[in-house]
């Protein structure tokens, strides 16, 4: 190797924010090469993937609808990851939010909107929070690794949803499809404009609130210290157990809210597949947004574009929808790789010719 990494001695502020931009530029390049490798004209493929989805009628609305759950979940994950609490199971918390909110919606179809809708949202938040609480309890009480338990519980959550929509909650008039009846009007998330649901506004607003909270509260400081200097946090007397609970519950609540918004909004009922992997994509959103709720808003829009781009490529280029996952994986790799520039600078190796 002719290049060497030399520690900067301090974090580079410039590269903290330049690294995502570098990663995005490199990703577009690599995705272009990738399309070329599978026999598609790279220029046109990149245009189809990144630009075309925004041009058509309703393109922006579709972008906001996909971005809302990503932003909500990733905002919660920022709280976790800042504290070095690795909640990887947001997908399961999202699912339980949808199930709990959907259950209330199905149970009281005749209730008026002003009563039912808030109850549905509260149930959704409680569902996500409760599912995250299992992981928090296992971590704080039994020291069980939260990465693995939260992930395993995501599989369990999906199976629970499958059971409900194929069994007790299946719509008797649904021709046997794995889905519930459509929710009543009293449980429907209102639209602010054609195609723009309440969640699209709630997501950036909540991101802003969480940012203010993390920045200006002692709690935000405690979480950061626990993440970056756990020993210092211990000496300072910040209770680790308490912080793990707060971080897990906060991210579970956000994921649950995202889940209930999704099924009462764009989907309108419970089905067997309510998420194209939002809980996992949100991990990328959180990192790309620098674990900063405002960065998360921008990153959420970009990753939302990757879903639309994957669909557009499927229609225009005949590539499978899986291209979205490939894009997301490459983006996260290149982002993590670019982040090396925050702490190190690249030098020619001394003596290497």
């Amino acid at each position: 190797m002719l290049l060497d990494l030399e520690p900067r001695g301090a974090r580079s502020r410039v590269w903290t924010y330049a690294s995502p931009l570098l990663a995005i530029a490199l990703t577009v390049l690599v995705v272009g090469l990738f399309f070329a490798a599978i026999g598609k004209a790279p220029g046109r493929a990149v245009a189809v993937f990144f630009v075309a989805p925004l041009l058509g009628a309703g393109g922006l609305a579709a972008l906001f609808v996909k971005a809302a759950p990503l932003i909500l979940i990733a905002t919660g994950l920022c709280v976790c990851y800042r504290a070095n609490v690795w909640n990887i199971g947001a997908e399961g918390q999202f699912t339980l939010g949808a199930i709990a909110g959907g259950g209330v919606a199905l149970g009281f179809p005749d209730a008026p909107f002003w009563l039912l809708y808030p109850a549905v949202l509260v149930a959704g938040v409680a569902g996500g929070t409760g599912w995250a609480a299992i992981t928090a309890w296992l971590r704080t009480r039994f020291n069980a690794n939260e990465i693995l338990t939260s992930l395993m519980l995501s599989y369990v959550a999906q199976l629970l949803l499958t059971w409900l929509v194929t069994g007790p909650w299946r719509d008797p008039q649904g021709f046997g499809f794995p889905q519930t009846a459509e929710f009543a009007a009293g449980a429907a998330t209102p639209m602010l404009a054609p195609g723009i649901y309440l969640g699209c506004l709630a997501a950036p607003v909540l991101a802003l609130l969480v940012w203010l909270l993390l920045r200006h509260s002692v709690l935000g400081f405690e979480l950061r210290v626990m993440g970056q200097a756990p020993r210092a946090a211990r000496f300072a007397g910040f209770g680790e157990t308490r912080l793990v609970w707060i971080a897990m519950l906060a991210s579970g609540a956000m994921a649950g809210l995202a889940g209930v918004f999704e099924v009462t909004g764009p989907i309108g009922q419970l089905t067997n597949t309510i998420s194209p992997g939002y809980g996992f994509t949100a991990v990328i959103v959180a990192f790309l947004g620098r674990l900063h709720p405002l960065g998360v808003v921008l990153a959420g829009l970009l990753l939302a574009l990757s879903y639309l781009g994957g669909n557009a490529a499927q229609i225009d280029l005949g590539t499978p929808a899986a291209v979205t996952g490939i894009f997301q994986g490459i983006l996260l790799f290149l982002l993590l790789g670019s982040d090396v520039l925050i702490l190190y600078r690249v030098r020619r190796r001394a003596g290497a010719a």
Partner: protein
Amino acid sequence: MIFLLTSFIVSVIGAATPLLLAATGELLAERAGVLNLGVEGMMLIGAIAGFAVAHVTGSTLLGVLAAALAGVALALIFAFFALGLLANQIATGLALTIFGRGFSALAGAGYVGMAATTLPRLRVPGLSDLPFLGPVLFGHDGLVYFSFAAIIGVAWFLARTHAGLVLRAVGDSHDAAHAMGYKVLRIRAAATAFGGAMAGLAGAYLSLSYSPMWAEDMSAGRGWIALALVVFAGWRPGWLAAGAYLFGAVMFLSLYVQGFGLPIPSPFLSALPYLGTVLLLVLISRDRRLIRLNQPASLGRSFHPAR
């Protein structure tokens, strides 16, 4: 009765083999200090590479080799970012899983629903026809025997060889190992590659033997269960083998009981392996001292040679 027992043991070995293969590789990587959460992705890439190559060439041996190489290729991507560029290992492993899922789905799009060439059973004339012992010991395919050899080989390597001692030193204190002149990053990259090869083989076992076909996400979380098994085993090979077979039994029973028509909804039974994994993690992790004693001290930490 003896017939039931025989078929039970054979089925459990089948369900346990992919877990054992993948977990053996991850165990060695983690003993070198590398936490690669991309096992699921490498397994899926191995499954499609093995399936596709065996389908095209008609040779399961070439398929198995391709699966191992595909796993190594993905592991080296991980090594480049997590070891070379000092990226966070947890996030890099997740990226590997997301990428592997997407890439395997893309590569496998043309193979969905096709019948696989299955791995041949290696029969020993005479011995394979013995009652009970024949099917239990002498009726498996090559990857099952390889999984036995691999876990024994890794146990021997770690406990009895100088190279194994060096690898453990790298995992326990990379600074000390570096000071003694060992190439920390090279050793870690090699261990990561071994983990990739084993995960790839686990995938090949799924698509060429256990359920001979290709389907998106066919590993269904086995890569994550393998990761949990390594923790459960306390990073010790003997316990790993025991855990893998215990989980093979759980996975087999959760499938088998579904065929009985019991009044238990099948999603509940399907959830058993995942709930079992959580339970196992809880049982083992509550003993903090055991985890602290056995976990490689440098696990998941980046290493940058200062000099």
